[in-house]
């Protein structure tokens, strides 16, 4: 059994990473990337470099067919040149789509060396920069997965319902671009993605195995970029939520910016359109990023992690785990200013 399972593992470097931030995560889940850096640097003592000169990977434009592949290659090459300049060889993109784009571009360069030469030439002509291909390309969730037992030893809380003493039931959702494009680049490949399930099991939770577990979340770029097409997107999400509803999950955890956003926000839209929510009481199912889940269990302040930005509010989940929080500070800015609380939706309870 172990022999076969070994084939489903991937090489994950141990230290010295160049971190690339996501275009959209800092808006949607503003505390997640900061939490990841804190976890890696302060909890695990790893060397992670966060360069202020980084930029987009072109992922959204590339998948929407408005950025040609040659441009994407050159932009990716510039990001790699920043890593090379600082003497790093392990690249960690925060976004699952970026991870997919980098994997794809590296694969293209390996299959077609002339494209690599052309990219080097384009980059040099445009910026005077040179780059090396990373020796190890991993997603941040791979790193949290790799160090999950080290983190477990430092955690203040576990994924256990303190009222019943039973493990929390967690739906894990892996972004499609993590392992469905290049299956061997994901922990557990595309068949048995284990990167999030491994964290949940190591931290005391119970993974929910439901029929549409591997279905797309609905983020697919072509499904939502044009407003009229968003019916396809929300229909995908609804299919997943309907499938998981009978298992009564306590929360959903994902490793992709789009999945977290749409599984969370579409719950509001479905509630408005169809007066339907997917938990018994009408509050919806909370959706967390894996950094938020890790940060919460390590004892970080939920409001500093940015949980108040989510559509489905997380207080009931915090109560179940036993994490203290101050409701008065929920809408306080980092500088202490009190921000205006958002409007309440009509159908989704908050």
């Amino acid at each position, binding site marked *: 059994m172990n022999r076969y399972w070994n084939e489903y593992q991937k090489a994950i470097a141990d230290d010295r990473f160049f971190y690339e931030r996501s275009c959209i995560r800092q808006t949607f889940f503003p505390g997640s990337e900061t939490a990841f850096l804190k976890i890696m640097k302060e909890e695990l003592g790893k060397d992670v470099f966060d360069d202020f000169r980084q930029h987009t990977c072109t992922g959204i434009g590339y998948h929407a067919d408005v950025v040609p592949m040659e441009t994407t290659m050159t932009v990716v090459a510039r990001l790699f040149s920043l890593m090379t300049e600082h003497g790093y060889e392990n690249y960690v993109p925060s976004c699952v789509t970026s991870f997919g784009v980098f994997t794809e571009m590296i694969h293209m360069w390996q299959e077609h060396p002339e494209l690599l030469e052309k990219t080097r030439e384009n980059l040099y002509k445009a910026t005077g920069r040179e780059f090396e291909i990373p020796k190890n390309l991993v997603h941040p969730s791979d790193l949290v997965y790799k160090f999950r037992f080290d983190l477990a030893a430092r955690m203040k809380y576990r994924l256990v319902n303190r009222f019943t003493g039973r493990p929390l039931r967690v739906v894990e959702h892996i972004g499609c671009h993590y392992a469905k494009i290049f299956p061997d680049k994901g922990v557990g490949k595309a068949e048995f993605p284990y990167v999030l399930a491994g964290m949940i099991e190591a931290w005391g939770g119970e993974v929910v195995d439901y029929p549409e577990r591997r279905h797309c979340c609905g983020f697919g770029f072509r499904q939502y970029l044009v407003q009229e097409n968003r019916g396809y997107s*929300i229909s995908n999400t609804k299919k997943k939520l309907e499938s998981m509803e009978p298992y009564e999950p306590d929360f959903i955890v994902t490793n992709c910016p789009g999945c977290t956003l749409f599984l969370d926000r579409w719950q509001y839209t479905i509630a408005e*359109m169809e007066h339907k929510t997917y938990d018994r009481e009408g509050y919806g199912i909370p959706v967390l990023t894996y950094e938020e889940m890790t940060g919460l269990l390590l004892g970080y302040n939920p409001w500093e992690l940015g949980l108040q930005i989510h559509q489905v509010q997380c207080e009931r989940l915090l109560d179940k785990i036993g994490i203290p929080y101050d409701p008065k500070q929920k809408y306080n800015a980092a500088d202490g200013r009190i921000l205006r609380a958002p409007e309440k939706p009509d159908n989704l309870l908050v």
Partner: protein
Amino acid sequence: MPDFGFSIKKSRGEDLDQVSLDKYRQLLEREPSFKRCFQCGTCSATCSARQFTDFSIRHIHTAFRRGDYETLEDELKKCMLCGKCTLACPRGVNLRPLIISMRQLLDETPVEVKRRRRQR
């Protein structure tokens, strides 16, 4: 409700545990040539009614194979039984008798069941 500019689409997936394929099986007994259909759509392409309406024999075939009989009775009335599709079919499916058999099978559905379907 706010105007989102889009709507939730109903799933087109069929749960075969929830539908009855009895009528489809009866249809195959009455008109075995239906088994030869490979859904090329020649019947729809040549159909006179199709030129002017959204009537599609191919859709009817697919719906019948899936046990989705709800709207078929009204759809089948649109067929003028001209028989052009039977002449055009590359697989030799007896389409005209097939349509008649479909009408008969759906007509045999108990009135009470039909009424319930319309109410849904």
